[in-house]
């Protein structure tokens, strides 16, 4: 028989645990109700009055990747031991305040969202889609920018394909022993026809690396939208990262259907909007943490950057070379490359150039469409 005091204690414990899952959700860990249920089940199987066991009950059931683990490690002491929170293990030093979406949209202050009333301006800006297509993305008025957003959503990126090892029934190709025999069995073992199979085609991986440092700021919003459209189109085979002072994976955020919400989430995830660039170091982080593991292996890798590197370019060159060896095709998109009189003389580009398969412009919608074509046929 449980006495009423015991029941209250259990209730308090339960409230504490469920409350924690809410804190965790707010911290960016996608906690679903079945995960919460698993957490409670795990807590039940362990002795949750023991700090370590409580920690592991949650970590094993509520996290799903290393990023979650880092967030969990911050949230756990903050919730369960507020007095000791300061000396918590702090492997991932996250920025104090997440930047607002407003940072995504240069030239507009205050409202970060799409709900501001731009109606009349849009009409005024509808001067001609064709002209807008070739306009420099960095030099648009707010109204033109709005119009362009809509055009962006009309892009239809197609990921490139590669031959798959899995074979499917086909009229031509290698004999399919199993299907042939199965057919023969149906005819009392008499072999009438040879069934065949052929390799199908699968989407090839695409990796988008977007430089969000200060010098790229005018293009950041457009490029993020471009990435959103691409990720939405092929969520299983396209990955997106931002390069700034740190590397940030934004694929998960960009998978949301709604563009504004996806960009808002991505904006929150990126700690270093419009900061400096350490292109070489950040590329190295990508190659080490993701590229070599498989994200870049035989993928089409697209780097969006002006190649502006403050420090030496030796590391950058080294990393681009590594990347080109891993990737199926390495494409560098430089917004300045489309302008009259452009020559690839910036240190970063010079170091990268020998290892690139393509150097493309990416300053307008037209050039982004061209990029899509190159990616499609890579």
């Amino acid at each position, binding site marked *: 028989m449980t006495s009423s005091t015991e029941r209250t204690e259990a209730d308090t414990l339960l409230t504490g645990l469920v409350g924690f899952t809410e804190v965790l959700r707010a911290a960016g860990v996608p906690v679903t109700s*079945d995960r919460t249920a*698993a957490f409670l089940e795990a807590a039940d199987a362990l002795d949750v009055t023991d700090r370590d066991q409580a920690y*592991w009950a949650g970590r094993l059931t509520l996290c799903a990747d290393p990023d979650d683990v880092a967030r969990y490690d911050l949230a756990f002491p903050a919730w369960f031991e507020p007095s000791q929170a300061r000396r918590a293990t702090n492997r991932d030093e996250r920025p104090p305040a997440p930047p607002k979406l407003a940072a995504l949209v240069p030239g507009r202050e205050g409202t970060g969202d799409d709900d501001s009333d731009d109606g009349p301006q849009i009409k005024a800006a509808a001067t001609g889609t064709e002209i807008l297509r070739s306009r420099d993305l960095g030099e648009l008025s707010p109204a033109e920018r709005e119009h362009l957003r809509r055009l962006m959503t009309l892009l239809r990126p197609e990921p490139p394909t590669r031959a*798959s090892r*899995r074979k499917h029934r086909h009229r031509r190709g290698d004999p399919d022993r199993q299907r042939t025999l199965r057919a023969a*069995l149906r005819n009392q*073992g008499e072999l009438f026809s040879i069934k065949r199979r052929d390799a199908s085609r699968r989407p090839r991986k695409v990796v988008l690396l977007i430089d969000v440092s200060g010098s790229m700021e005018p293009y950041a919003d457009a490029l993020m939208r471009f990435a959103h459209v691409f990720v939405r189109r092929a969520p299983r085979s396209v990955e997106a990262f931002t390069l700034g002072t740190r590397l940030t994976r934004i694929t998960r955020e960009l998978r949301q259907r709604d563009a504004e919400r996806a960009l808002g989430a991505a904006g929150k995830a990126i700690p270093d909007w419009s900061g400096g660039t350490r292109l070489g170091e950040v590329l190295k982080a990508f190659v080490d943490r993701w590229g070599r593991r*498989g*994200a870049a292996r035989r993928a089409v890798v697209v780097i969006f950057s002006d190649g502006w590197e403050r420090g030496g370019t030796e590391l950058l060159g080294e990393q681009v070379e590594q990347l080109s060896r891993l990737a199926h095709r390495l494409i560098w998109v430089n917004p300045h490359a489309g302008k009259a009189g452009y020559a690839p003389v910036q240190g970063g580009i010079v170091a990268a150039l020998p290892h690139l398969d393509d150097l493309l412009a990416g300053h307008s919608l037209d050039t982004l469409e061209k990029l899509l074509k190159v990616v499609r046929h890579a």
Partner: protein
Amino acid sequence: MNDTAPAGAPLGHPAPGSPDELAKALRATGYLADDGLATATYLAMQMNRPLFCEGEPGTGKTALAQALAEILGTPLIRLQCHEGIDAGQALYDWDFPRQLLHLRTLEAAGGDFDVDSVEASLYDERFLLARPVLRALRTTPSVLLIDEIDRADDEFEAFLLEVLTEHAVTIPEIGEVRAETPPIVVLTSNRTREVHDALKRRCLYLWLEHPTIEREIEILHSRLPDVPERLAAAVARAVQKLRHADLIKPPGVAETLDWARALQLVGARHLDVGTAARTLGAVLKYREDADRVHQQLDALLAS
């Protein structure tokens, strides 16, 4: 079937009473589990959920399944994933050539056969090729290791999800096969690709890091008891430094063990620049890494 439980195997999993007990049992097999790993494994058994292990290569993901099978006295059934793997390679298949042969034999024997009985005899248990997942369901208890799930395709994940949730499969010609005691399932991933959240949600998620230096020395002792203590400590220290040396492929525990073994084989009593240079191939697997480390051997070995 190939996988029969060894004589004297307990019926059902002997349930260790706590994560600590489990850690002790694992330690007895030479697998040194930290709190997280012991708790994860304990929960996987208590909650009947697959354990999803992710982490750098060489952090002991696969070895965990082997150690678990050993302490439970159950067979380890392993499914190695690869691109294009499908249900036929994971679950079961029919042995077509033998079925055909059987049919020819019936024909040669002559006589009247009715179609139904011929068909029934064709889809008999003896023509069924049980693949790892089916074997694990039929061998109870057992430990099923699904290795490198990140190499398989999404479709295969969806298929696994079903089997791991139901602990049962239906073979149209035979009927349902349901595990009496669900197998303990360990999935491993090297993170070359993100595994679908639906699958992860079914599992307990364990992110494995490289061991601390103390634990690594312990591991060396327990696996290679003949390696002198000082050498083991020096190797562990050097490997820890290598993991922070910005290498293309930081060494895992397997490389630590390889290195210690290599040093032992060349008769080294302690780790100096000469012996380290000669045996570095056991630890470093890229020319760039070897070049970089060769230049800094002194610093690496300084304690």
